């Protein structure tokens, strides 16, 4: 492979530099450059991006790679390949592995495995509390040295407010964001779907929006009093979006994350008891879905992330009550966002891509998400209009738990470049 790369004739969109124009992107030795010498141009590999969008490699700050310990669902190798196929060049993986990543050793092991097997950049997170039990602070400083970019007990929201207060204070000392999965566990025991008309109709245990809103509210208060940055993961409720919106207006350091599935589906989609519509937080009402979209549009939720949560077919093929929460989402995320936000006319491409590139990178403190000269040459090229039918059997993930199965979506990733190297060419992973 050449040291030089020329991507030509594409519509270059680099939101952080407010760029949206047809032009060239040049790469030399894994970095984006402004100019190439004549001899370099001779030698360079050329990608013709006519009719396509060229943008910074997408950044997903909410991914479950299941490695170590649950590698029948996913591992670093398969998960990062699914990421590449979805146009993501940098992903932040959650620490609820087996064992959980609550110490520098486990974090180091994840970094080592990523260095060996990953197709895209992997940034680990560490637990907020030991064993993700919500009781005692994990060694956050040591994990920071081992490479974590954020702390979170994702999936197990810290219930004790005193522990949470100390945790955010302590993490803030290291400049680490706390990412919180907002869920009051006392209100959601046995809950499997949103509480409302559909949970009553299906006879399934309801999950009230209040259980999420209360913890979002708590976190706003804690951020206000500590000055620490708290990031609200996968916000799914209308009132939750509003709490974040108001907090931001008051200058409180909170950020928010929207999921493609919460912008696309509603709790009515649970009506066939298909477990691919069971996730945490659950699909909410149409009003909540619209509010999440509105939150993305007005900046209340500045990040779009996937919560890619693989589970094996055996685990998902059961009664709704018994199924684990979560769906895979990296390969469909861009197309779903294009459908919901861009093709619908709600926003333009540059606005959407900001939420998938430099804004999530900024929340996690990653030096990613731009095509500025000098930046790592992480680049995604996609056709925003190509229609394709989702078939989870073609997924590069080890799992198949995809609720878009059978949907036709517009927007297809054609090339994914990580550090100047093409890893996905639109049909396959390069180099495997």
């Amino acid at each position: 492979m050449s040291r030089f790369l020329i991507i030509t004739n594409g519509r270059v969109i680099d939101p952080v530099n407010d760029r949206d124009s047809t032009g060239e992107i040049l790469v030399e030795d894994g970095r984006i450059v402004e100019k190439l010498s004549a001899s370099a141009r001779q030698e360079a590999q050329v990608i013709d991006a006519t009719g396509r969008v060229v943008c910074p490699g997408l950044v997903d700050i909410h991914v479950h790679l299941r490695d170590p310990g649950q590698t029948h669902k996913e591992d670093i190798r398969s998960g990062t390949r699914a990421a590449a196929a979805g146009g993501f060049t940098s992903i932040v993986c959650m620490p609820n592995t087996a064992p959980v990543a609550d110490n520098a050793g486990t974090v180091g092991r994840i970094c080592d495995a990523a260095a060996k097997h990953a197709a895209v950049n992997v940034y680990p997170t560490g637990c907020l509390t030991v064993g993700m039990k919500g009781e005692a602070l994990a060694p956050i400083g040591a994990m920071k040295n081992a490479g974590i970019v954020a702390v979170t007990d994702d999936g197990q929201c810290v219930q004790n407010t005193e522990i949470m207060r100390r945790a955010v204070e302590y993490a803030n000392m290291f400049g680490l964001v706390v990412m919180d999965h907002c869920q009051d566990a006392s209100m959601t025991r046995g809950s499997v779907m949103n509480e409302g008309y559909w949970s009553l109709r299906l006879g399934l245990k309801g999950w009230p929006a209040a259980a999420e809103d209360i913890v979002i509210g708590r976190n706003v208060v804690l951020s206000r009093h500590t000055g620490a940055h708290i990031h609200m993961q996968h916000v799914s409720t209308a009132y939750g979006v509003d709490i974040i919106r108001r907090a931001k207006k008051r200058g409180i350091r909170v950020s928010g994350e929207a999921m493609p599935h919460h912008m696309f589906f509603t709790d009515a989609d649970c009506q066939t008891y298909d477990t691919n519509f069971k996730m945490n937080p659950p699909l909410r009402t149409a009003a909540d879905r619209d509010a999440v979209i509105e939150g993305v549009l007005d900046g209340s939720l500045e990040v779009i992330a996937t919560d890619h949560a693989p589970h094996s077919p055996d685990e998902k093929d059961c009664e709704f009550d018994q199924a684990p929460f979560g769906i895979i989402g990296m390969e469909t995320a861009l197309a779903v966002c294009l459908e919901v936000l861009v093709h619908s006319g709600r926003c333009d491409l540059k606005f959407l891509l900001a939420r998938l590139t430099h804004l999530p990178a900024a929340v996690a403190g990653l030096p990613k998400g731009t095509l500025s000269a000098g930046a790592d040459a992480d680049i995604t090229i996609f056709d925003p209009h190509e229609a394709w039918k989702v078939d989870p059997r073609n997924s590069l993930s080890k799992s198949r738990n995809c609720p878009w199965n059978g949907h036709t979506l517009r927007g297809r990733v054609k090339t994914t470049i990580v550090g100047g190297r093409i890893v996905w060419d639109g049909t396959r992973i390069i180099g495997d």
Partner: protein
Amino acid sequence: MQAEDHWTRKDLIGIEELSRSEIEMVHALAAQFKQTLGRSQKKLPTLRGKTILNLFVEPSTRTRMAFEIAAKRLSADVTLVEEIGSSLVKGESLRDTAQVVQALNVDMIVIRHRAAGSPLYLSKIVDVPVINAGDGAHEHPTQALLDTFTIKERLGSIAGRKVTIVGDILFSRVARSNIWALLKLGAHVTLTGPSTLIPKEFAEFGVEICHDLKKALTDADVVMLLRIQHERQSGTHFPGLGEYKSLYGLNADRASLLKPEALIMHPGPVNRGVEIDTVLADSPQSTILQQVTNGIVTRMAVLYLCMNAATHRLALS
């Protein structure tokens, strides 16, 4: 696709998806079967040679007995699998159980399960008819069929009648199935009980919600009481049995608000002295035992119709 006078379903999953005429077909056939009950030779040869598996993954006494007797009256062979002592407790998945059952060549499965939606799930795996005998808080279709059959038998008609359902609606599959059945048959349905057990979204089903028991009972043609699951909800959803009884227990004084001929129904098992005073439970207005008897004939009708539809399908394919 549903022909007016022809039953084509092989599965009975819920009342929600049934049409009014389908419900009435079950009632009509149940009425015919009821005429045979008085005979000394009760068995009909209708399902001779068929094997019905009662898969009761959640404990049940009266529903299980009624299904068993109904099947035997139709000359079917019945096998019972309960959770206790079966491989289900050893962690076998419902899919595997279903496939084993299918391999045993049974002709029909009657399933009772804690998880809402499991009969539907099962029906997608197996080819044979699946009858829902109660799934979580979702549906208990045969209970609603027998309840509406009983109302029709006693009052002659259902359309325009005022039916009040009292108690734990939130956790009750009986309530849900009855709401669907009664609405389809043209009744006015009122739900009454503590606000914690009747989420406001129930109004979207097309029923009225009224937390004042006296108002809800006034001029009702039928009152349906539900068993209060105090062992599960006491303390979180209502303070205790004493307060429940004082607010929502049916006694003679409150029953006097009903229409004179009104029916008092209960699917059982009854908490005597809580949902209902003993005197009323044993009064001529009470249909409790009639419901049990009708539970046999309505289930005979369901078994017959679904088996017939399945056989028909097989013949066509």
